[in-house]
C-alpha cells in the first residue's frame, strides 16, 4: 500500500507531466478501444504494477492460480492467462468494472498483493476499456524493437532536476512515449536518484551514475554526471600537470577532468614497492628488497621492479591461485582426487609462468578431454558438471556474463532469453564421461570424451536447439566434431564483445580493487564501465598483443594511475569509482597469512605439504586453516570472485588479536621478536628494520621516539619486541594494500 502511494504520489505535484503521459501512453484509451493492443498497451501495465514480478504472479508456478510470464516476456501466454484461463473468470466484458482482474487490483476483493490500482488511474481506465472492447489481442503488427531514453548523457549541477523521456520504437517505424510505464532505477543513488516517473534528482555529491530504464524486456541507459562544484586553480593545475604514461592515464585523466576531481599525488617508493609486490607476487617485499629499492637511484626503477616481479616464480603462484579459485580446483575431501587437483594447479601455474597466451589457456580448458592425469585441464570437467554449470561457469569466468537467470526465464535486465541460454548449452551437448573410481557423484580419475552426437532440448518448446554463441549464428556441427571448439572460436573472434573485455576488467579489478565494470563479472549494457572507452581500448590492446596476460598487467602497473597515493584529499573524498586515488584493499587471506609468517618468521604448516609451502601455493580448497577460512578464502563453490570476501568480521579481529595460532607468532621463542631482542644493535637501528620489514618504510620520528620510550620501559626485551610485533601486525597499514 505504501509503495503504491509512493509510486503515484507524484501525480499531484507533477500535473503537467501527468497530462503529457495521459496523452502519450494512456491516450490510446481515448482512441477507439478496439485499437488497443495487448502486447503494447495492456502487458506494460501488468509489468509496471508489478503483477508479473518474481514474488507474485510472475513466479514460475504463478500465485493464487493466476500465472503470468516473469516481467511479461511471453505476451501470448499472458494474454491467455488474463483473458481465457479458468474459463475467463478474470474478465467480465458485460460489466468491465466487475472484472476480477480489476477488483483484485483495486482491492475491492481481498488481494494478497494489496492495492495496486485506483479507479481514477489512467491505467485502470485503459484496462477497463480493453475489457469492454472484448479483450482484443490487437493487430500484433507493431512490435517493440528498441527503447530510447533521452538525454543519453547529461552533465548536471548538484541538487538539480532532470526529466527523462523514454521512447519505444516499434517495428512498423512508429514510436510512442512510454516514460510513465518504464521502470527506472539509479545505479548510484548517492549521486542521483530517479523517481518512478523518470524525474532525476542529483544529490550533493560529485560523481556519475547510470539511470537504467526497463520496458517490455528492452533496456536503455542514461548517464548523469555531477562534476565537482568549484574547481580551484590548484585543482586545475593538478589536472593539467598529471603525467600521462600510457593509454590508461589518458582515459582516466580525461574522466577526472570531466568530473573536475584532481588526481592524488604519486605514491612514495616504499608504498609502491609494497603495493606492487603484494599484488603481482602475492607476498610482502623482503627487508633486503626494500632496502635495495629505496637505495636504487635509477629513474626507471619502478618499471624495472614490475619486470622483475612479472618474471618471478611468485607471480605464477599468485595468479595460479586466482585461476584455481575461478576454475574451482577442488577435491571435496576425496583423497583419490588429489592427483587431479595437484596436476591441474601445476598446469595452471606452468601456463602462467610461461605466459601462455590467454586464448590458448582458455581453449585448453574449455575443450579439455581425457583423464586428469594425462590432461590436467580435464579437472575442470571433473568438478564442473552438468549442462547448466558448463554454461554458467563459461559465461561468468570467460565472458563476464551472469547468464544463469536465462536458464529458467528471460534475463530480467538483459536481452538474453532461454533460446540464448540453450544455444550456449548445445555446445556442451556431446560431453560424456567414463571410467573412474568411487561411488561419489564426482568419481576420481574419470575420462571426459566427446560423443558422436548429442543435443539439447529447449525446456519449453521441447525442440532441439542448435549451438549458437550469444548474438551469433546457429551452427551445424558435423558428427564426431567437438562443438566446444566452435564455441571457443566464437568467443575469440576479435569482435566478440565479451571475451577480451572480461579478462582486462578482471585484471583491472585485481589491481584497483574494483572493476571498470563492477561487479567485475557482470558485463552488460545496463551496467556500463565507469570509463567505457578505457575498457574498449584496453581490450583492443589485449587482442592486439595476441592475448598476452603480462602485457595487460604491465600496462596497468606502469601507468601513473596505478602509482597514485591512496590518501584522499578534500576534493575527492566522495570519489570512489574513477581512480583519482588508489583505493585500499584488505590483503587476500592467503597473502595476509604469508605476510604474517614472513614478518614474524614463524611459518604455518599445511598438512602433507613441504615445510616452506606458503598459503598462496596451496593447490586446492582443502588444507583446512581457521585463519584462511575467517579471512575469506573461498571454498570454490562458485565461479564468482565475490566468493572471496574481504569483509571484516568480529571473528577475524578476535582471531588475530587473541588466537593461539597468531599469538604464537608474536611470542614464540624463535620468532623475529626474539631475534631482535637478542640482536646487539641499538634500539633505533632495530626499530628501523622492524618497520621496514612490516611496512616497507622507516618509522616516523614520532613513532621512533614512542617506540624507544616503550622499549625503555620494559625489562623483558623479547616480550617488548613481541608486543611491538603484535601491534604492527594488527594495524590496518599492515593488513591493507594501500
Amino acid at each position, binding site marked *: 500500500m505504501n509503495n503504491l502511494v509512493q509510486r503515484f504520489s507524484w501525480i499531484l505535484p507533477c500535473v503537467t507531466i501527468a497530462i503529457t503521459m495521459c496523452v502519450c501512453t494512456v491516450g490510446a484509451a481515448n482512441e477507439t478501444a478496439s485499437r488497443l493492443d495487448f502486447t503494447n498497451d495492456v502487458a506494460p501495465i501488468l509489468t509496471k504494477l508489478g503483477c508479473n514480478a518474481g514474488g507474485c504472479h510472475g513466479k514460475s508456478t504463478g500465485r493464487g492460480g493466476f500465472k503470468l510470464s516473469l516481467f511479461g516476456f511471453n505476451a501470448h501466454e499472458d494474454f491467455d492467462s488474463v483473458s481465457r484461463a479458468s474459463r475467463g473468470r478474470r474478465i467480465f466484458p458485460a460489466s468491465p468494472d466487475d472484472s476480477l482482474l480489476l477488483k483484485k487490483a483495486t482491492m475491492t476483493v481481498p488481494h494478497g498483493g494489496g492495492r495496486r490500482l485506483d479507479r481514477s488511474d489512467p491505467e485502470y481506465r485503459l484496462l477497463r476499456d480493453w475489457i469492454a472492447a472484448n479483450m482484443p489481442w490487437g493487430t500484433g503488427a507493431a512490435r517493440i524493437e528498441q527503447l530510447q531514453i533521452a538525454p543519453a548523457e547529461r552533465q548536471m549541477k548538484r541538487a538539480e532536476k532532470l526529466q527523462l523521456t523514454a521512447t519505444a520504437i516499434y517495428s512498423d517505424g512508429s514510436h510512442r512515449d512510454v516514460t510513465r510505464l518504464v521502470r527506472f532505477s539509479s545505479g548510484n543513488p548517492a549521486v542521483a536518484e530517479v523517481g518512478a516517473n523518470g524525474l532525476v534528482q542529483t544529490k550533493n555529491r560529485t560523481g556519475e551514475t547510470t539511470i537504467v530504464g526497463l520496458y517490455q524486456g528492452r533496456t536503455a541507459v542514461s548517464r548523469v554526471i555531477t562534476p565537482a562544484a568549484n574547481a580551484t586553480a590548484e585543482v586545475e593545475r593538478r589536472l593539467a600537470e598529471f603525467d600521462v604514461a600510457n593509454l590508461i592515464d589518458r582515459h582516466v585523466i580525461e574522466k577526472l577532468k570531466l568530473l573536475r576531481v584532481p588526481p592524488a599525488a604519486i605514491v612514495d617508493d616504499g608504498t609502491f614497492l609494497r603495493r606492487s609486490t603484494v599484488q603481482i607476487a602475492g607476498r610482502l617485499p623482503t627487508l633486503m628488497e626494500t632496502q635495495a629499492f629505496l637505495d636504487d637511484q635509477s629513474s626507471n626503477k619502478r618499471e624495472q621492479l614490475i619486470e622483475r616481479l612479472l618474471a618471478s616464480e611468485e607471480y605464477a603462484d599468485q595468479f595460479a591461485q586466482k585461476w584455481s579459485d575461478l576454475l574451482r580446483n577442488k577435491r571435496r575431501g576425496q583423497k583419490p582426487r588429489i592427483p587431479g587437483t595437484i596436476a591441474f594447479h601445476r598446469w595452471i601455474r606452468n601456463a602462467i609462468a610461461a605466459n601462455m597466451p590467454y586464448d590458448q589457456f582458455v581453449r585448453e580448458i574449455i575443450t579439455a578431454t581425457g583423464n586428469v592425469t594425462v590432461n590436467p585441464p580435464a579437472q575442470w570437467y571433473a568438478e564442473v558438471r552438468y549442462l547448466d554449470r558448463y554454461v554458467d561457469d563459461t559465461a561468468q569466468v570467460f565472458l563476464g556474463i551472469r547468464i544463469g537467470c536465462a536458464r529458467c526465464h528471460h534475463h530480467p535486465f538483459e536481452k538474453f532469453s532461454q533460446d540464448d541460454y540453450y544455444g550456449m548449452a548445445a555446445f556442451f551437448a556431446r560431453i560424456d564421461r567414463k571410467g573412474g573410481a568411487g561411488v561419489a557423484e564426482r568419481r576420481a580419475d574419470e575420462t571426459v570424451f566427446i560423443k558422436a552426437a548429442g543435443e539439447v532440448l529447449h525446456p519449453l518448446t521441447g525442440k532441439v536447439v542448435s549451438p549458437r554463441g550469444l548474438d551469433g549464428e546457429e551452427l551445424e556441427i558435423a558428427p564426431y566434431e567437438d562443438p566446444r571448439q566452435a564455441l571457443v572460436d566464437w568467443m575469440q573472434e576479435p569482435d566478440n564483445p565479451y571475451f577480451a573485455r572480461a579478462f582486462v576488467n578482471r585484471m583491472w579489478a585485481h589491481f584497483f580493487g574494483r572493476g571498470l565494470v*563492477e561487479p567485475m563479472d557482470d558485463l552488460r549494457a545496463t551496467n556500463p564501465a565507469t570509463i567505457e572507452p578505457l575498457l574498449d581500448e584496453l581490450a583492443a590492446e589485449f587482442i592486439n598483443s595476441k592475448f598476452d596476460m603480462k602485457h595487460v598487467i604491465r600496462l596497468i602497473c606502469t601507468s601513473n594511475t596505478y602509482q597514485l597515493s591512496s590518501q584522499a584529499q578534500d576534493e575527492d573524498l566522495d570519489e570512489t569509482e574513477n581512480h583519482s586515488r588508489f583505493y585500499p584493499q584488505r590483503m587476500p587471506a592467503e597473502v595476509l597469512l604469508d605476510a604474517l609468517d614472513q614478518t614474524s618468521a614463524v611459518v604455518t604448516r599445511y598438512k602433507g605439504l613441504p615445510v616452506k609451502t606458503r598459503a598462496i601455493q596451496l593447490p586446492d580448497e582443502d588444507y583446512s586453516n581457521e585463519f584462511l577460512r575467517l579471512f575469506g578464502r573461498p571454498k570454490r563453490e562458485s565461479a564468482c570472485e565475490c566468493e572471496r570476501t574481504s569483509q571484516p568480521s568480529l571473528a577475524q579481529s578476535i582471531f588475530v588479536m587473541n588466537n593461539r595460532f597468531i599469538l604464537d607468532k608474536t611470542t614464540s621463542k624463535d620468532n623475529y621478536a626474539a631475534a631482535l631482542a637478542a640482536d646487539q644493535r641499538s634500539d633505533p637501528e632495530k626499530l628501523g628494520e622492524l618497520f621496514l620489514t612490516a611496512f616497507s618504510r622507516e618509522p616516523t620520528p614520532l613513532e621512533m621516539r614512542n617506540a624507544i620510550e616503550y622499549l625503555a620501559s620494559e625489562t623483558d626485551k623479547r616480550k617488548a619486541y613481541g608486543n611491538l610485533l603484535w601491534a604492527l601486525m594488527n594495524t590496518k597499514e599492515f593488513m591493507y594494500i594501500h
Partner: protein
Amino acid sequence: MMIVSSCDFGNTMQALNDTPFVPQDRGTNRRGFLQTGGLGLLGVTGSVFAGPLNVVDAAVKGQPGRIKRCILLFLLGGPSQHSTWDPKPDAAEEIRGAYKPIQTSVPGIQISELLPETSKLMQHIALLRAVTTGDHAHSSSGYAMLTGQPHQPTNREGANPGAPNDWPTFAAVVQFLRRQQPHIMPPAVRLPHHIFNTDQSVWPGQDSGFLGVPADPWLFRCEPTSADFQVPEFQLHRDVPDARFGERRKLLDHLDRRLFEMDRTGAFKSHTDIAHQALNLLGSKTTVNACNLALEPAASRDRYGSHPFGQSVLLGRRLLEAGVSVVQVNWFRSPDEPPAAPCWDSHADETRRLKEALVPPLDQAYSALLRDLIDRDMLQDTLVVCMGEFGRTPKFNARGGRDHWGHCFSVALAGGGVQGGSVHGSSDKHAAYPVSGVVRPHDVTATMFDLLGHPPNTEIHDRLGRPLPVSRGRVIREILS
C-alpha cells in the same frame, strides 16, 4: 611511549562515525549497495524484483520485534514424538511405547510422563504437533529444519555443506541482519559444538552459506561440564594476560594512526569499528563473566543438571542475558553413546535410552531455563524453541528402537509472543501423519524471524545478488499471542 588514552581513541571513533560511509573493499561494496538497493546492477535487481512484496530490508529499516532474543534447543538425532510432546495412549503398545502421558498445567494437554517438570510449565508452551519435512535422513532433514529450505535432493544421508544446499542457517541470518547493531556481544552463538555425523562430517545448514563467513554464528566449542571450562575465543590467552594486552592495545592505538587520513573516506570504517568491538570484547568483564559458569550459584548449576546439555543451556541463558540475540544449543555427542543409537537417534533400546539418557536431562534443563527466564522477567521477550530434525517411526523395530520419520513430529515453542498452553496441528492415532494444522520447516523459521522483528519477506541476497526472502513460510499466527 606516548600513551593514547582510551578516551582519545573514543574521540577518534566518534570522528570516524561522522564521516559518510563509502565502502571500499570489494566485499563491503557489494553488500553496502545491496542494503541501500543502490549502485549498479544490484540496485536494479533490488528495485525490479522488490515489486509488490513490500519487501522490507530489515538491515536498514529493522523493526522492533515482539521479542528480543531466541534460544534454540536442537535435539540432535530426532526425538520420538510419542515419548515427548505427542503421546498416543490409545494406540497399541508397539506404537505408544512404555511411557504414559501425564496431565499438564493446562487442562486438556497431555505430554509424556518423562517430562514431569515441563508439564508444570505448559501454560507457557505452544506445541506444533504436525510438523513435517517429508525427509527421513538426518542431514537433509536437519538442513530443512535449520534453514527452512528443503535439501536438494531430499533423503540424503551424510550430506555436507555446499551449493546448492548453502542456504544460511537461522542463526546466521540473524547474525547477518543484526551485524551492525552496536553491541559488545556477537548477535548469534552456537554451543557446544557443530552438529556432525558419526563419520565426523558436518551437516549442511549450520553456518552462513551464501551470506559469507562474516555471517557465521559464533561457534563455542566447549565442554561446559568440565572443571576448568572456558570459552577460549572470548578469554584473553594465558600468554597475554590483561596487563600485557593493555600494553599491546596502547601500542596499537598509537601505531594504527598512520592511515588515519585515508580513514576519512570511510574506507576502513567497518574494519575500525569491528576491531574496536573486538578490543572491547576481549577486555570486557561482561563477556568473560557471561562465559564463566563458575559465577553461577551451585544450586543454579544443579537445577540445570550436571550433564553437558544442562550446562550448555545454562551457558546459553547467560549469553542471552549478556546481549546475544540467538543462542543455538546443540544436543551433545558424548563418547559413551551406543554406536547403534547415538544422541536422540534411538534405533535400538529406545525405552531405556529415553529414560536413562535423553528425556530427563531435557526435562531438567528445559524447565530450569523457562523458570529462570520467568524469574528474571525475560520470558516475555525470549523465544525458546525446542526441535529436532525429525521424529521417529510409529512402530518399534526389531531392536526395540524407532527409526527416522520425517512425516510428522512435534516442535515446542515457549515464551515471548507465543500463546502458552496452545496446541496447533494434530497427528493421526499413531502420530504417523498430520491430520490438521500441518507446519513445514519454513513456517517455523518464518515465525521465529517474525517474532524477532524480521518479517519473512525480509530480503537477503545470494552471491549473484538475487533477492531472496529470509523465509518462504507462513507465520503460524494460531499459536501467537
